[in-house]
């Protein structure tokens, strides 16, 4: 249930390659129970510019401490002890199936930030996780990943070595892609997956949309991915078994 609240920046840490991690302390344990897939709409200063909130994507959370870990570009300046205004959680959690033993996370030409929380949760519940990084995603500082993570780099932005094998190995796949090209990337992946499996199982191939979300409540309709589906209410992950491009 989306709420408004105030959090305090507790710690700021640069992790390199243009990224920093910001720990925020939230008021409500309910909010600290935020799940992989959900995000926050944030206003960091008391001004009308920028008018639209930024989307903050948690990469981990600690409900015991009421802490949420956020990843932001290090070009932005954050100082400990500063208030920030949150609206959230926005979106529904990724559906990581109980039966999933092998999880494939694909950051296709786009930073893997939106997959990191899921990566942590999956490893903590003893799944095997492989992360694919292509194009822009290869710049990401992988030292920040838990050591158990298997990482595949590719020279290409659209495919990667042993693409079909990894897709066969995985019980579930989550993929992110850059905004102007996401439909292209998602449909290509859908094609490849359909070539190696007769039909796509439900919840198998999940496209994670990273669209602008001005309101987060289904009011402004700026985040629609189809004529009935909203990133903010029904996403950010959509099952590629059901999408048409």
């Amino acid at each position, binding site marked *: 249930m*989306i709420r408004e609240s105030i959090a305090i920046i507790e710690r700021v840490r640069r992790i390199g390659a243009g990224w920093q991690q910001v720990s925020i302390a939230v008021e409500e344990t309910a909010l600290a129970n935020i799940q992989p897939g959900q995000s926050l709409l944030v206003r960091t200063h008391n001004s*009308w510019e920028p*008018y*639209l909130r930024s989307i903050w994507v948690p990469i981990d959370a600690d409900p015991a401490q009421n802490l949420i870990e956020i990843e932001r570009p290090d070009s932005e300046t954050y100082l400990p002890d500063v208030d920030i205004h949150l*609206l959230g959680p926005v979106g529904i959690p990724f559906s990581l199936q109980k039966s999933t033993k092998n999880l494939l996370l694909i950051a296709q030409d786009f930073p893997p930030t939106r997959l990191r929380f899921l990566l942590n949760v999956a490893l903590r519940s003893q799944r095997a996780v492989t992360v694919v990084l292509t194009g822009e995603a290869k710049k990401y500082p992988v030292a920040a990943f838990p050591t158990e993570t298997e990482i595949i780099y590719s020279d290409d932005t659209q495919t990667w070595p042993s693409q079909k094998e990894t897709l066969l190995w995985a019980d579930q796949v989550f993929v992110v892609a850059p905004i*102007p090209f996401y439909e292209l990337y998602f449909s290509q992946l859908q094609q490849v997956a359909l070539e190696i499996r007769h039909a796509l199982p439900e919840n198998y191939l999940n496209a994670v949309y990273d669209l602008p979300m*001005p309101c987060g409540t289904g*009011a402004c309709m700026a985040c629609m991915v189809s*004529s009935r589906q909203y990133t903010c209410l029904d996403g950010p992950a959509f099952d590629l078994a059901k999408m048409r491009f």
Partner: protein
Amino acid sequence: MIEITNNGKYALTLRNPVMIASGMMGFDPHLYRNLIKLEKLGAVITAGITYKPRKPANGPRVVPVTGGMLLHTGLPNSGINRVLAQYQNIWARSPIPVIPHIVANQPNDVARIAERLEGLPNVVAIELGLHDQAQAEDIQALIHAARQGSQLPLLVKLPLFNAIHLAEVAAEFGADALVIAGPPRGTERDPISGKLVGGRLYGTYLKAQTLRVVGFLAGYLQTPIIACGGIHSSTDARDYLEAGARAVQIDTLVWVNPAEVEVIARHIGGEELTRAIGALPDEWHPGLGKTQLMQRKKPASSQSTVPPPNLPELPLDRDDPTMPSPSQD
């Protein structure tokens, strides 16, 4: 209770002169129930309703601009029949009155929609949204159609850029109140696709333009004016009332800073009296969280904003700057 329209056959009174404008609440006043205490407000206007269903604009787009944004949605709605089937009961249970907004395109459609709205529980008025190209003849036909279909008080929302041209006409043809104004259109480059996008402009700068028009119209119109555009603080709302508006509508602030909407309703509704300039800081903030409350208790390092006790009176202005005789500066 505040009289929003003049007394007469079609009179509308509300508990609070602050309403939610057409748009942000969609058709469900409960959409923001965790963000805003609706019962603090006067009424909520629904999103635009058409006779037939309308799909959202293909690839709906938002383009940020300084202090605002350009938004293009396409006025999607499932048509009057399905809207009523889905929301009529929700409206009936809403803690504040509901005012459906009719997209005023075809007089025929307007009459048929108005008819369906007549007599619904908790529906206290109709708002008619005029399109940008509407001319005097169109307005007459559209208002006439709405009157044919229903006995509800009729608010007519005019587009900003020709509000001054059309206000008198709309008042003459029977609008019970004028909503000034629908936001202006603009074109901006979408940073994502690199393309030019057309849409309406929302944001803080709407206020100065709209306030000018409200002040201008309030100077000679008898029909009450409901001001709408760029209200982001109690001061903004007060400025409109001071310029002659009877009530205000607020839209984008609902999601840009929801807590502020309640603050405005409280101030403007008379629960709190503060001066626009030199007021003491208001300690009542519905959005004030525990962490911030804790911080408030720390000794403040910043200077007090309380004015010094022996402050002289503000010197009087020798000529009133709001009334410049030359018209082009």
